Structures are given as structure tokens and as C-alpha cells.
């Protein structure tokens, strides 16, 4: 039978001020903001791997998500692609959001697969749908779209209905059976 821990009263997520102070001490001032009890830190693309390594050493053992936002049509955006890394710590119950901005042409960021193996497929999906290259990724190829697909569909300049790829297949009739 599964061992059930004794009932505990629910607790709220812990604030991350100590983590922010440690990051500022190690990497200099970083742009931080808070929105609806969620803390976001902007990290430059060149320092991103060291920051993640430091955060993992501080106890952020769960990489919740790696995703990307294409700011092409966003008012007031300074960069085109904003990578979003959501981290969580199961031991101290803290959450942190790291934003890394990259630009065209050839947006590239160092891969965090050596730190968290879960990032493997998440980064492949970002490459597939947005076209952001991850240096050091062991197996960067398309995940959800077919291998022959050439575009990066979730970019803002790709139309919702596609460019006709979905119609481009042979038709079977009754006499082909």
C-alpha cells in the first residue's frame, strides 16, 4: 500500500527574495518584476546558462516549462523572441520565472539539457514551432510537425490556416482500393 504522509495544513508558496539577492550578488543587477505574486527575472542570453546553474544549485530542482513568445506584433516590445523558463523548488516551495530575450536573425541560446533532462523535448518543441536554436542540445530536430515541414508555425508571420501544406496530399478514390 502507498505510504501516506500525515495530514498537513496547506501552506502558501514561499517568497523568493533571498534567491533574488543571491542572484544579484553573483551576476550584478538583473531586471526584476513582480506581477500577481509571481516574480520574473530578465537574464541576458549570454549569461543564461550560468544563472540556471546557480539556481539549480540553490535548490530549484523542477523545471516546469520552457516556452517562447513572439513579440512581433506586441506594442512596446524591444526584442522579438522572449524565452520563458518556469522553475520551481520542491524543497522550499518557491517559484521563479526567468525571461531570456533573443532576436532575429539566428536566435540562439545555450541549452539547459545538461542541468534538467526534462528540457530536452521542451526545447525541441520551441525549435520546431519558433525556430530558436539551442546550442549544446543533444538532438535538436522537429517534435510536433512532420520532418519535411519547412516553416516555424507559431511565429506571428505564419498564418493560422497555413500556406496550403494541409491540402497537399494524394487523393484516394474507390478504384485505388
Amino acid at each position, binding site marked *: 500500500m502507498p505510504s501516506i504522509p500525515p495530514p498537513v495544513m496547506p501552506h502558501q508558496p514561499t517568497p523568493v527574495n533571498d534567491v533574488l539577492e543571491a542572484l544579484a550578488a553573483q551576476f550584478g543587477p538583473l531586471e526584476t518584476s513582480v506581477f500577481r505574486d509571481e516574480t520574473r527575472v530578465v537574464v541576458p542570453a549570454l549569461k543564461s546558462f550560468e544563472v540556471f546553474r546557480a539556481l539549480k544549485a540553490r535548490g530549484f530542482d523542477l523545471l516546469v516549462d520552457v516556452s517562447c513568445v513572439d513579440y512581433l506584433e506586441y506594442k512596446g516590445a524591444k526584442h522579438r523572441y522572449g524565452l520563458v523558463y518556469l522553475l520551481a523548488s520542491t524543497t522550499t516551495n518557491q517559484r521563479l520565472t526567468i525571461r531570456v530575450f533573443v532576436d532575429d536573425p539566428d536566435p540562439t541560446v545555450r541549452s539547459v539539457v545538461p542541468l534538467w533532462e526534462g528540457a530536452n523535448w521542451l526545447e525541441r518543441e520551441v525549435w520546431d514551432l519558433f525556430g530558436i536554436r539551442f546550442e549544446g542540445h543533444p538532438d535538436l530536430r522537429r517534435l510536433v510537425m*512532420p520532418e519535411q515541414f519547412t516553416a516555424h508555425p507559431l511565429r506571428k508571420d505564419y498564418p493560422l490556416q497555413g500556406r496550403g501544406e494541409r491540402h497537399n496530399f494524394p487523393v484516394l478514390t474507390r478504384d485505388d482500393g
Partner: protein
Amino acid sequence: MAVGQSQKLELPENVVVSKLDELANWCRKNSLWPMPFATACCGIELMATGASKHDLARFGAEVFRFSPRQCDLMIVAGRVVMKMLPVLQRIWLQMHEPKWCISMGACASTGGVFDTYAVVQGIDRFIPVDMYVPGCPPRPEQLIQAIIDLQDKIQREGTITGREFDTAERQRRKRALVEQSLPITIDASRNPVIQRELADTIQHG
């Protein structure tokens, strides 16, 4: 008995006279073996139709064999995306004649809510379909009604040799392949079938 005189034939009770086609149809319709091509949510309703509350076994279609060589009814339940369509076509080709296809749900019939770059806007663009079941997802009762209607269709139109699949009516594709209204460019030069269809449309107006 002189020539020109008609005589009523007296049959004993255990003799049935019928056309060979009707007998074959009766056998085929009452033992349709479905090939569930379940991709998405409609697949769950398909499983629910086969489960104990809405029992599909009552209509002879209990045997959900997953091998295309053993089935004669393909139920495409759920959306079919670009990556999956060659698989669907290959399975359709592997099924033996006579075979029928039910397109279950809005996504398989027309693309449903997903008018996106990846979803095929109706499988009848690429394989021949006999019965469409609307709904998102259709209730199990709707699917059962579709199977009953397909059974009626088989009884009405079926033949023992499968001649009904050779008619010109069946051969003609029922929907246009090229959507003239959307401003998209299709790489039609790679697809000879589209070229043929385009030539037909231009010729016949």
C-alpha cells in the same frame, strides 16, 4: 403443364428464395467488423459506444479488430492531421474489399473547430467516405444510428461482387479539393491528382 399457363409454385416451409445479392448484403451488414481509427475525443465516445451502456455488439459490430486486414468498416473518429494522413491512407489501402468508411465527428468530416495549418479539413478530401456523423463529439446513440443507416445502405445498394463500387457516381469526388476562396498558394505541381482535378474543373466549368 402447357406453355403460356402460369402456375403458382408451392414451396415447403423451410425454403427461402431470394437474390444472391440480398443474401450477401444481409450477411455483410449484420457482421460489420469496425476498424477503429480513433485519434482524439471522438475515440472516447467510440469506446463508450462499444462499452456496456450503449452496446455496439447488438448490431454485430462488436469485433473491434485493430488489424486492417481483418476489418471491413473503418471508423475515423477524431481529427486527422497532416502527419497522420499518410498513415490513414495506408490503412485504408490495406483493408480488403468490400469496405466502408464512417467519418465520425465534426473534425473528421470537415475539420471541425480546427481550421489550422495542421488539420486536414475533412478526410473525404483524401479517402472515400460513406457516412458522416456530425457532433463534437457525437453521442453514442448518433454513432449507432450511423451504423444502422450504413446497414440500410448496404442492404439497398450492395452487391455480392462489389460492383457498386465501380459506378461513375462513386468515383467522382464529392468535394472540391482546391479552396478557391482562401488566398493560399498550393504547391500543386507536386501533386498529379490535383492537376487532373484542376484540368477537369477548368474544362467543365
